[in-house]
Structure formats: C-alpha cells, structure tokens
C-alpha cells in the first residue's frame, strides 16, 4: 500500500506492508523500518520503530491531521484523499482578500465602487489583540464589501470583492470564481 502524505509543500511517500498483529513495515526509497503500533486512546498511538518506543498524539483539525511526536507537531494531509482538503487557498489565496487567521473586522477603510491601488489598505482585522491590515492584491474597483465591522471572519472567506481594471478583464472571471468557491465553504 502506497502512502502519500503532504506536509506543507513536501510530499512524504512510502510503502506500507501490513505484517498483521499490530505491525507493519514501511519502505522509504530503499530504506525499510519495522513498526509496531497500538492505539491507546482516540488521540494516543504507541509506536515502536525499529525497537524504539514513542508515544504519538493525533487529532483531526480543520487544517488536516495534527500529529505530535517528540515535542514536534506536524500537520499532515493524506494525498490519496485529495479533494477532502481544500487546496485552493495556496494558489488562489494571494488574489483574494481573506484574513490570515480567524479574526474580527475592526475597521473598513474603503467603500463600494471606490477605486483602489495595489497594496492599498482595505480593512483591518483583529485577532487576539493583534491588528492586521488587509491590502488590495491588485488595482481595481471595489465591487462588494461582504462584511461589516464587528463581524467574525475566517481564512478563506472573501471579505472584499475587487474588479480588476477592464484591461485585465480576462483574468477577472477566474479570480471571482475561485473567490466564490472559497466563500461558500
């Protein structure tokens, strides 16, 4: 069985061969390790890799499966289950006005119909006493402001729709489609 896990931009690929009775061997390229495992609870897995025991902790989070071993936490996504995890954000993200973390809108600096320059401040969101200024990813006209001051917002949610100037018209529908996909999630 081939396993493909994504960690940030990297793919970790290895082959798993179940050996029954809570054991499997994993092959990374030409290197093979023997693993014994046992579920201790929903979030705890006892692992023994080539004889060395480790306790691993796992939890499903909105961003993927969070795995902690030896004091280090990794977010791992199963590539085989592609589609269950939205990948749109990393490619379309820079073109959409969306908060980097869950936050509250504290200030709206533009109005609908107004022209904006690339890099111009559009709104301020605040999370845990830290203010972040969200700026226009490209020059254009503010078509719609989708939020109000005081509203809670999440990453992926498009807060402001901007129409690029007519010259860039070809790119506009694509950017909008991506934005709407994320907004509906």
């Amino acid at each position, binding site marked *: 069985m081939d396993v493909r896990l994504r*960690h940030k931009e990297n793919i970790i690929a290895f082959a798993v061969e179940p050996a029954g009775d809570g054991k499997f061997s994993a092959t990374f390229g030409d290197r093979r390790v023997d*693993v014994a*495992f046992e579920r201790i609870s*929903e979030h705890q897995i006892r692992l023994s890799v080539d004889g060395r025991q480790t306790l691993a*902790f796992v939890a*499903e*989070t909105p961003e993927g499966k969070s795995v902690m071993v030896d*004091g280090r936490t990794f977010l791992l996504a199963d590539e085989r289950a592609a589609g269950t995890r939205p990948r749109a954000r990393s490619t379309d993200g820079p073109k959409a006005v969306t908060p980097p973390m*869950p936050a509250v809108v504290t200030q709206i600096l533009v109005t609908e119909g107004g022209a904006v320059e690339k890099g111009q401040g559009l709104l301020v969101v605040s999370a845990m006493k830290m203010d972040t200024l969200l700026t226009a990813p490209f020059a254009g006209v503010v078509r719609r402001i989708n939020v109000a001051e005081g509203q809670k917002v999440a990453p992926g949610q498009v807060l402001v729709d901007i129409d690029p100037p007519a010259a860039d018209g070809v790119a506009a529908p694509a950017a909008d489609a991506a934005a709407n996909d994320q907004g509906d999630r």
Partner: protein
Amino acid sequence: MFKKILIANRGEIAVRIMRTCREMGIAAVAVHSEADRHAPHALSADEAVPIGPAEPSQSYLNMDRIIAAVRQTGADAVHPGYGFLAENADFAERCEREGIVFIGPPARVIRQLGDKITARRIMHKGGVPIIPGMLEAADDPAAWAAAAAQTGFPLLIKASAGGGGKGMRIVERPADLAEACRAASREAAAAFGSGTIYLEKFLPRSRHVEIQILADGRGHTVHLLERECSIQRRHQKIIEETPSSALYPVLRAAMGQAAVAAARAAGYVNAGTVEFILDPEGRFYFLEVNTRLQVEHPITEMITGLDLVRRQIEIAAGRPLSLTQEEVCGRGHAIECRIYAEDPERDFMPSPGRIAYLREPAGPGVRNDCGVCAGFEVPVEYDPILSKLVVHAESRDLAIRRMIRALQSYVVLGVRTPIDFLLDVLASAPFRSGKTYTDFIATHMAEWAPDGQALELAALAHAADAMAPKARPAGRVAAETRPGPWHTLKHWRL
C-alpha cells in the same frame, strides 16, 4: 480577612488566583463573557457571573458590569489579575469610592506610574537612575532637537501613556527625528488616546531585568530578587528566568535597593515590579513600574517559595508584611515559557481555534499555569496566552534540561503554539551560555524553521492511526444505557 474575592479576569491568571483563594479559605467569584462560558476559570470558581458579550469593552473591561457582579455576589474585594482593568486607575478609584477593596496599589499610585514621564520624574527625584532623556513631555520639533542633542543618537521615542511597543520608535539620524516624533505621536494618540511622547537614549544590546517588590500599607518594603525577561518577540516577553545570568551579588543588591527606593518614592503598596534596562557594562536604568501582578510572577514564587497572590491578598486586607529582606532568599533556578496560541512559522501570528487535544507536562519541578482545556474554543477576542510552563531546578543548566523535557511532553493539538520554537531557543548555544539580550530572536532565530527530523516518525504515526481501529462512538452510547459496574455492584469494601 476577606470572605469572598471576585476575580475580574479570565484564563490562566484567574485560575491561578482562585487556587490561592481556595487555600486561604476565601470563596472565589469568576466573571465570564459569553465566549468563556465553558472556560476553565469560569468552571473552577465557587460562583460564576456572566457579564456580557465576548467583546472586551462589553465584558472584562466593563466596570459597571464588574461592580454589579461584586454587588450581586457580595464579594468584599476584587483581584484584577494582569491586563484588562489591572492598571486602570479609574477602576481602582471606583472600587475605593464604593467600599470595595482593590487588590493592588492605590489609584493615585497607578495613575502616576502609568504616565511614564511622571514616573521618570518621581524616580529621578527619588534617586533612582533613569535612562538619559527628557523629563518633560514636548510637542515641538525645537524641544525634540534640543533633547536629542543631549542624549545623542540612536535614541528612542516613547509614548508617555504607552505599552506593548505602540508609539515606540528608534531614531538613528537627526534628519529623521521630527517626522518620527510626529508619527509616534499619531500612533500613540490612536492607541492610547494621548499623543504625548518623550525621548530617551537608546541602549542597544541591553537586557531587560526586573525586580519584584512587595510593600505593605505601613511603609515596609522588600524586594524578591530579579527576573530576566530579555527574550521577546514584538516587545512581548516569551521566556523569563531567575536568577539572571548577568547579575552578581553586588549588582543584584544595588538593583534590589534601587527597586525598593523606587517603590518608596512612589508611595507604593502591594506587589509590583520595577523594570530596569541593564547595559553590557552593568549600568542599570529605571524603565517603568508595573503596578500589578506580573505574568511571569511564578518564577519568583519558585525560587523564593513565596505565594505572591497570598501576599497581595494579605496586604490588601491591611495586614503587615511579615517578611524581612534578610528572609528573602532564592534557591535554584526557574524558567518560564509562555505558551501562546500563535504560529512561530508565520511571524507569531495569532492562531485561535478549538483545542482538539491537550496533555499537560508533569514531573518534579514542573508547574503549568493553564487556562484552557481540551474542547475549549480559544476566542479571537483576547490575549493569545494559553498557559505558562514553569520549571524549577538546582541550577540553570538543569532548569534548561527540565524545560526541554517538559516542552517535549506538552501536547497541544488544534491551535498552533510556539513549543517547537521554544525547544530550539532553549537548546541553542547562545541561550545555554546566557547570552540573552533583547535582540535575541532577531539575532539568533530570524532564520528559524521547524525541525523536520521527526517528520518521518510523524508520518509513520499518521499511517498507524489510519490502520488502528478507533473505538466506535456507538460503544459509548451503549455503555451509558446498559447498567455499568456502579449499578450492579452491591456491597464492596476497599
């Protein structure tokens, strides 16, 4: 002594204060916003009073609602913790006026020390060394230029009402001075409602060393040694330790005496912290007084064996401080790491969310002051601190090893934490050798990326998790409906 104390705060500090209340036989009242209905601080109190929506101005910062909660529960005193109303002179004054004991210094002292330029004047008059710079605020370029000519460059612009780095600016060249002053003033006005600024000499490669003080209402003041708080990000501390590797007995005694002098000059009562900047030559300068229980107070508790909250409560109740300077003695070494919900890979950006799993470290010399639990939704409205992990050991080296061990066994899943980052700071050569200056993170950790060594192990754990069957949720339901051992058991004995 008080019968009931209301804790006007949330999170780990509220939980910590309640622990001492319980030990003293004093009932503890929690207040909580809608976002904190199921927060540990609300659940661990003797009474919990809802005070409004998540927005701080509608709840934890709302004096009317907090005073109403005091009246409703019949509490005789309020402990403000840190942050929120802790250094709000108006709140302390209002408590005084309404016959409620405010566990902290008198309102007048909070007001004077909260204005940094007033505090500088008080300290200067009291013989406490201050950073060379202005003693009067000014708002015209001529006065700024005159002050700059005296301090020299680089210099630091500060907001008199400041805090948290807002309104602060380093100026390297005379040509930039006027514009930087105007910008800092605007920023300060926006953040604090007062654009008053002043200039002082900038001391690069310095350390931030603070002295804990205790003063009773009868003029008896002692200091409880120092805390070194130089490891900071965005001007906020993330690792603190005591003793400081930069102090030696003569310097420690001198700084302790200066802190006591500062407290006396200000007419200080209750627990407070006098912050100093220490330059590489061992010269120290008054920075400010924090008129509250400090976030990092546990490290002082660890080495002195004293409970600072108990002392605060006793002093507020009018008792004399039964502690002489000679009785204060530090044993061993203590370190604190602040565990924030933030992402060290993205410039420590806040990371609110639901805690999916939490396992606190334990063992000899380990203390974790924690304000969250598994299943808790960490709100976006408040400070991102989840807990403070504190260790105590015989020596600095042993304390570092203990902290690394404790961090490695601290599991927080669901929100990002700086645990990875802290592990690497503690293990780094400059930290181990005590080279802890305020520019530590920028100098030594700017290129930091998480250690990927355990990635393969994590991948194997991921595979094992997918292969190991999970207990069926249905099983849980069945266990509840079928009679368990407690239902079928008859006579039994232990």
